[in-house]
């Protein structure tokens, strides 16, 4: 049959010896050496973790203000919603309220778990009396005391509790000072770290308290690690971070995401959609013609196209088919 192209049997092609195991072992050894050398020379700095003790040493007034906000129910944790409490519905994407759907799986009472329970371990009589007075008071009374104290702290320029004007604060100043005492002594980390299994430890409460303060956020800002600083891409110190996360963190920098209360779920949904688009590019009209327009394949296979100029002419004159 004239003109018919017959593909020869694969065994008819010329062959040459190739040692695949040698290539694999060589690549493994070279990459392992590179990893060791670069990890030693320019590895991640592994900064020391922020502890309650370092927080108390460097920003004691912030510890007091944060403990007060937990008692007043005005902290981020207190109003977060699921999975910690029911103070709000959490983030939503239209009718999709994922946080609410999954419910309160890790209940945290901000005032009790983050402040009262740890402080009640202090044995001095003044603190014991303050905790007892707090527990016996109504929720409204507790809120009034704590909010009064939070407002009074806010009026002091540096937040120093010693400079707060007298007022109706109930036991709140003593309890907040107790939290600072525990933090300074180094025992607050342990008191806030719970264990649900024999080996595991759960630092959720400690991290929530730390995140409710300004101290950790200020350190993150100073190192360009905050969400509105493209922080997802960055590493602390003089090290490269995760530049491949550029698109994920990009959305957080522009409206409507940068001003949205639901930015996390919106960006997650958008990235899932874009990932699907990327996976299905070959079947999406328009997008699947981009390679034909870019013609990068001509550059990759330039030797072949140099030997087959008729193929270049054919693709230039023949309408692109998919």
């Amino acid at each position, binding site marked *: 049959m004239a003109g018919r192209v017959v593909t020869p049997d694969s065994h008819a092609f010329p062959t040459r010896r190739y040692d695949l195991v040698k290539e694999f072992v060589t690549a493994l050894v070279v990459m392992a050496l590179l990893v060791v050398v670069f990890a030693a020379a320019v590895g991640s700095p592994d900064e020391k973790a922020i502890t309650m003790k370092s927080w108390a040493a460097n920003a004691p007034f912030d510890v007091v203000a944060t403990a007060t906000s937990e008692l007043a129910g005005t902290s981020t944790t207190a109003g977060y919603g699921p999975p910690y409490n029911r103070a709000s519905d959490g983030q939503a994407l239209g009718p999709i309220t994922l946080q609410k759907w999954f419910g309160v799986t890790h209940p945290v009472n901000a005032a009790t778990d983050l402040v009262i329970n740890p402080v009640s371990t202090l044995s001095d009589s003044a603190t014991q009396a303050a905790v007892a007075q707090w527990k016996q008071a109504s929720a409204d009374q507790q809120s009034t005391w704590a909010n009064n104290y939070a407002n009074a702290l806010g009026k002091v320029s540096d937040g120093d509790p010693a400079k707060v004007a007298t007022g109706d604060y109930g036991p709140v100043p003593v309890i907040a000072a107790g939290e600072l005492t525990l933090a300074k002594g180094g025992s607050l980390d342990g008191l806030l770290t719970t264990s649900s299994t024999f080996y595991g430890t759960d630092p959720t409460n400690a991290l929530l308290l730390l995140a409710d303060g300004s101290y950790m956020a200020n350190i993150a800002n100073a*190192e360009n690690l905050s969400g509105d600083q493209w922080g997802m891409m960055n590493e602390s110190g003089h090290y490269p971070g995760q530049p491949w996360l550029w698109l994920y963190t990009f959305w957080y920098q522009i409206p409507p995401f940068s001003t949205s209360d639901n930015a996390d779920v919106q960006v997650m949904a958008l990235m899932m959609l874009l990932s699907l688009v990327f996976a299905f590019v070959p079947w999406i009209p328009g997008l699947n013609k981009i390679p034909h327009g870019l013609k990068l394949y001509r550059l990759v296979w330039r030797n072949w196209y140099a030997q087959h100029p008729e193929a270049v002419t054919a693709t230039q004159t023949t309408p692109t088919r998919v």
Partner: protein
Amino acid sequence: MVSSPPLPPAIPLDAGFVHWGFVNLSVPNIIVIVAMLVVFVLALVVPFPQDRP
């Protein structure tokens, strides 16, 4: 909440950042991105090794 408590004394400050509009890139990240682009271009233009007999 206290607005700006002091930072710990030994905080390593940033490695230098390039601000361009709302874009905020660290110099180390730029180096990595440029290196990736260079490798991509090299992969396109460097000739394939010729077949050995």
